[in-house]
């Protein structure tokens, strides 16, 4: 605060601080507190609000625990999000390594542009593009049939389609932190490892990945959270058999008309995501502050 005041004067710095406080309190804290409030109260007709039945309880959360379909979809969302993060990592790591250690300045600029340009387009439209590509009579199936790999079209929509769209949607969030981490690795270390006779995979497991650990963890956290909270990809590309937990929350709010139960479901998802992230970071011994960087 003192530093801010020195740099911008009392007027501007007061405005900055007020805006930040307003943002945190109004846009982050208040909605979350309201959600908790909703989650812990029963869904009542308006005239019963504030009446004797309007008490705090865990009933909405326990409803989720006792509902087998929702419970299954919940856990599936968690592990499927982890799978999305894992596949995104497998796709991004080689690209990030190449960009950070091998590419010339010109190649880097072109590649970055090619990777970033699609993100100028809205996520819904990008997902819609996948919807077209993966359609039953769409270009992917006809291409595969033309080159003779398959005889009949494949129904991609469902788990596979959701996975593909999510991996594509979150590439940047995995790629950039890993790229930043690998970029700071001194080239001589890779050369030294090679000079000492290490095969390529060992150079990566012993030198590059340990160095890039914080970046990889950051990418995992971002991707996992985004995937778990994603709505568009499962809604567009999913099938009845591949429902995502966010779709059920959506239904409680907009179709079931039970905001309290919806809020409870959202709360559980939030808490479990946080738990997964913190446990993962603990396991790989990375601080939350490293991720924030």
């Amino acid at each position, binding site marked *: 605060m003192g530093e801010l005041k020195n740099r911008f004067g009392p007027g501007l710095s007061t405005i900055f601080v007020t805006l930040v406080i307003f943002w945190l309190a109004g846009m982050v804290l208040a909605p979350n507190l309201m959600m908790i409030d909703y989650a812990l109260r029963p869904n009542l007709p308006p005239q019963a609000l504030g009446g004797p039945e309007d008490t705090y309880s865990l009933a909405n959360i326990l409803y989720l625990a006792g509902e087998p379909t929702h419970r299954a979809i919940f856990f599936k969302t968690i592990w499927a999000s982890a799978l999305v993060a894992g596949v995104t990592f497998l796709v991004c790591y080689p690209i990030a390594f190449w960009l950070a250690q091998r590419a010339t300045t010109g190649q880097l600029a072109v590649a970055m542009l090619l990777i970033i340009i699609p993100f100028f387009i809205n996520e819904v439209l990008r997902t819609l593009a996948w919807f077209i590509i993966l359609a039953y009579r769409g270009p992917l199936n006809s291409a595969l049939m033309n080159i003779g790999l398959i005889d009949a079209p494949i129904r991609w929509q469902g788990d596979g389609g959701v996975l593909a769209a999510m991996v594509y949607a979150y590439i940047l969030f995995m790629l950039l932190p890993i790229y930043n981490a690998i970029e700071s690795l*001194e080239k*001589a*270390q890779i*050369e*030294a*490892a*090679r*000079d*000492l*006779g*290490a*095969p390529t995979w*060992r150079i990566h497991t*012993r*030198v590059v990945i*340990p*160095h890039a650990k914080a970046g990889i963890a950051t990418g995992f956290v971002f991707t996992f959270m985004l995937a778990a909270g994603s709505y568009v990809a499962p809604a567009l590309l999913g099938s009845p058999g591949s429902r995502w937990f966010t779709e059920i929350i959506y239904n409680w709010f907009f179709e079931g008309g039970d905001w309290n139960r919806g809020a409870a479901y959202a709360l559980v998802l939030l808490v479990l995501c946080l738990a997964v992230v913190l446990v993962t970071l603990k396991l790989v011994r990375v601080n939350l502050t490293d991720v924030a960087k």
Partner: protein
Amino acid sequence: MSHSVELAGIGMTFGTTRAVSDVTFKVAAGEFFSILGPSGCGKTTILRMIAGFIEPTEGRVLIGERDMAGLGPDQRPTAMIFQSLALFPLMSVRDNIAFGLEARGMSRPERRAKADDLLRLIALEGYGDRMSGELSGGQRQRVAIARALAVEPGVLLLDEPLSALDLKLRQHMRAELRALQKRTGVTFIYITHDQSEALAMSDRVAVMSDGLLQQVASPRALYDNPATPFVARFVGETNAIPGRIIQVQDGHARIDTALGSLTGRAGHGAQAGQPGTIYIRPEALMPGGTENTLTAGIERVDFEGSFALVHGRFDGGEALAASIPSTRLAEAPEPGSRASFGFAPGHAVVLGDG
């Protein structure tokens, strides 16, 4: 076990830049060989071609009489010490040293035993569990050497490894490197831009300039009998006075300069009637000498401890550098005065220009 290294006409072109041209020399097994040159002269490129990080665009690299074409750094019997050392910061000292053994599939107890042997060799016993970041500059240096020696290379390649150390430590490490080389018998190829480092440690030195090999000789021969004007100026300090060679006889050459006629040993390319330059070492110039006398205006006298360096200009305009041992400091001329110097013909060399 140590290997010889032979470079047969190697050259390297990066795009349109010619980094190294037609370099040929042979390093004997067990030799301490230095490649000396200013930065950008191509010496690091040569080292990287020997290590296998880059393939020469012309010529061949032979290690232990074997052609290395197409072999990567992991397949060559060389190990490299990088300028930055490139220790693995996330591994303990012991894991650093054992890294090459791990890559070769040696079992954990064997690796541990060998790493501990090497820690003893570099006098860092008991430091195995520390992280490399916790060590001092000199200790890190020794760990890098142990890590390279662990894979039992036939040739150790050192890329200015002492440049990050302070002067005292650097001098200490010189002696230590030399002793280590003698003890292990491994061929050392050492890159440096520091001529005193090259002269002090090496059996032989190759001097490079602009991608071209200038001379390969023992340190003494390099200093006393430079083959080219570049070597004469680059290795050690020198006073260079240009003129025209008038006579070459019995290994001596007379040269007419703006300061009069001077005599020195006849070096490479010294031919009567040709333009040439006489090179006189600072320690050869004696104040008040009677042979080969030269006069100069004295600008300043820098006292450096064991000797004083006298700076000034000869009457012909060339820079003067004369060193006077501290024991004879009384003979040093005063700044601002004029003084005459002389030198013995045996302590100067005349080279043909060009």
